[in-house]
């Protein structure tokens, strides 16, 4: 037995709180993503129907902002900073290392077992610690391949 009712109810509540107002599409999508962790096609269709707008517009907004995820994310989120300072400190090597460790193919950002999702962010404002990686809520500075592999192993063990 599975039930998505509470989630569906939450989406309805979010729509009501925003008075079914088309101009509040972005806050609606943000709140819904907070509930589902990502925006599925079904939910975007439901939102577009409820707001009486074309799904192509909802999809356009959802794909414009990198904040919105259109695929389910893993249990753990690894954010690698690729801002100027981190980039200069070779963050791309770290990204490649993480992808290799997690066995991610090109265009893949989430592991098949749904344990990890890797994201790159533009700047975390911790340039002094470059290169920086954030795993879930914890910030790790002066990252190396060895350190990240160890961190991933530890997270897996949790």
């Amino acid at each position, binding site marked *: *037995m599975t039930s998505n009712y509470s989630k*569906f109810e939450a989406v309805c509540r979010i729509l009501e709180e925003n008075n079914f107002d088309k101009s509040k599409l972005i806050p609606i999508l943000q709140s819904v993503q907070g509930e589902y962790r990502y925006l599925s*096609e079904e939910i975007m269709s439901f939102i577009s129907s409820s707001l009486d707008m074309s799904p*192509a*517009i909802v999809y356009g907004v959802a*794909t*414009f902002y990198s904040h919105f995820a259109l695929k389910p994310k893993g249990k753990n989120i690894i954010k690698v900073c690729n801002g100027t300072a981190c980039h200069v400190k070779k963050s791309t090597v770290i990204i490649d290392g993480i992808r290799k460790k997690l066995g991610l193919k090109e265009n893949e950002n989430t592991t098949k077992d749904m344990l990890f999702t890797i994201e790159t962010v533009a700047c975390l404002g911790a340039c002094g610690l470059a290169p920086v990686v954030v795993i879930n809520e914890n910030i790790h500075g002066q990252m190396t391949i060895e350190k990240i592999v160890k961190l991933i192993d530890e997270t897996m063990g949790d």
Partner: protein
Amino acid sequence: MGKYLTINGKKLEFTSERNLLEIIKKERIELPTFCYHSELSIHGSCRLCMIEIAGRGIMSACSTPPEPDMEIKTNTQRLIEIRKITIELLLADHDRECTMCAKSESCKLQSLARRLGIEEVRFKNIPRKESKDISTYALVRDNGKCVLCGDCVRFCDEIQSIGALGFAGRGSRAKICPAFERDLESSECVYCGQCSRVCPTGAILPKTEFREVWKALSDEKKKVIVAIAPAVRAAIGEVFGVSEENGTEIAGKIVTALRSMGFAKVFDISFTADMTIIEEANEFLERLEKSDNVPMFTSCCPAWVRFVEQYYPDFIKNISTCRSPQGMYGSIARRIMPEVLGISKEELVVVSVMPCTAKKYEARRSELAKDGVIDIDYVITTQELALMIEEAGLRFGDLEASAFDMPLGFKTGGGIIFGNSGGVTEAVLRNVMNANGDESEEFNFVRGENSVREAKLKVGARELKLAVVHGLKNARKVLRDIRADKKRYDFVEVMACPGGCIGGAGQPVYSDLAVRKKRSKVLYENDKIMELHKPQDNPYVQKIYKDYLEKPGSKKAHEYLHTSFKYRKRFKETLEIFKSHLEKSINVDVCVGNNCLRKGSKEILKHIIGDNKFKDNVNVEALICLEKCSNGPAVKINGKTFEHCTPDSVENAIKEELKKIKELA
């Protein structure tokens, strides 16, 4: 006192112009543009109409409102450089195989590159590679040719209120596509094709099928018959630089051209347009008498029909069940003509020439097929016909005119004006008013360009209210007003394309509204010089009725000339809310479409699942939608749909169903 500004040193007065581009146009200067269309909102994305304003620098003319004393220059060295670089950048990721592009010679990008003297592109050519979207019968999308001007997106949204296309992604990954990057066939597209008309390049084009027609023509075992729609004669001359007051000479040249290509018979869709009027007027009077399903909507525009089927299922019963003139032609050509012409059914190939992309889809509607066989084999557009004429090497302007073949070549003026917005209504009035003793032949109040034209007419003791609408956004407004009881009509004509069929997407591409007005005038002038004006006077139509169809509205007429419509889902997704693991559980589908949701489908879901009334005995899905928008909330329980549901009524219905299952067990 007037307001003045200067353009290239010349002092000019301006009044209510919306932007500088309009003023510059009046000065007979054609600035390059992609994203500017007088019918659409200002987008300002293509950055081609750049001008220099003293004290302000370089700005886009389309998005800058005029102010007094502006000093504007339109062609400085800096501007020339900027425009060149913009075009070069657009060309850098463009699929530049122009010789093999159907838009070649009418492509704006191509002509601007030539106008601005682009001799080399300084950037590396990295063409966008995406497979073409050929999912529909009507259109082909090729993102490799897209310049992201957004004209298609805005037309679909602002004029048609559909929004089948949108922007997705950003930056170098931005592109135009239907929702969720699906193909066009899975979107809400109604195939009007106006996106292809406003597309400056070959990114959206009408789908062609004239190659198959050539093949059929060269097959000795086949006899190919063809019919041309009224609007074709009003526009095809534009391709060959031939213009004429009333289109008869051009229609005659088309007949000659088609015969020379090898078509066995050349007919006129205006003939079946006459039939459509007779059948539709008869249906209208019947509905009025019974006060049944009034207002009656016209059914000749397939994009409009699909629009109702998709968005307003509760209005489907209001659409006239008459086939469109193309639909009637197909039926008569396929089922009656073999006997009349002495052609066997096996050798017959039926072709129609239409100003329209949606007609390609219409011909394949299963409702128009008999025993799985469609009536019309190929539908080609005016553009395709022009291509065939060019390909055959025919000098169109020099061709002699010849007459259409009988019987489907004879028409009245009523069938001719069908191609204009308002034409169907006028022709119906010529029939209906005539039956009531009014001999009028012209009803000028339905003509013109206004988006919604309303009229009141006395017919016997009754006052008829009519509306003529073009553009689907206008149609949506009319439907909403009818639904909200703000308006009452008896008869509503809708054409999806602005201007009606003459402005169809299969016609030679136009951007100047004057072109459309000229086409419209051609059809009205053609009507004037016709011998007969009222469809019911057409002797050949009378003969077909006498020989095959008895009388208008008869059982036979229904079999040959009528069709049916059905609800077409817009959304294919269902939200699984609750899944039971039991094998024998009841399926409960709750509609959460816009209307039902606001009338209480949420409370129903709460009652059934939130309160966990039925534990594992139910599978619950929320879906959009069950097409009962006026009678919501709607719930389907094991295949049976209930309307005006309340939490209690659904609970009881589920209990009933459970009881039944128990009894069976």
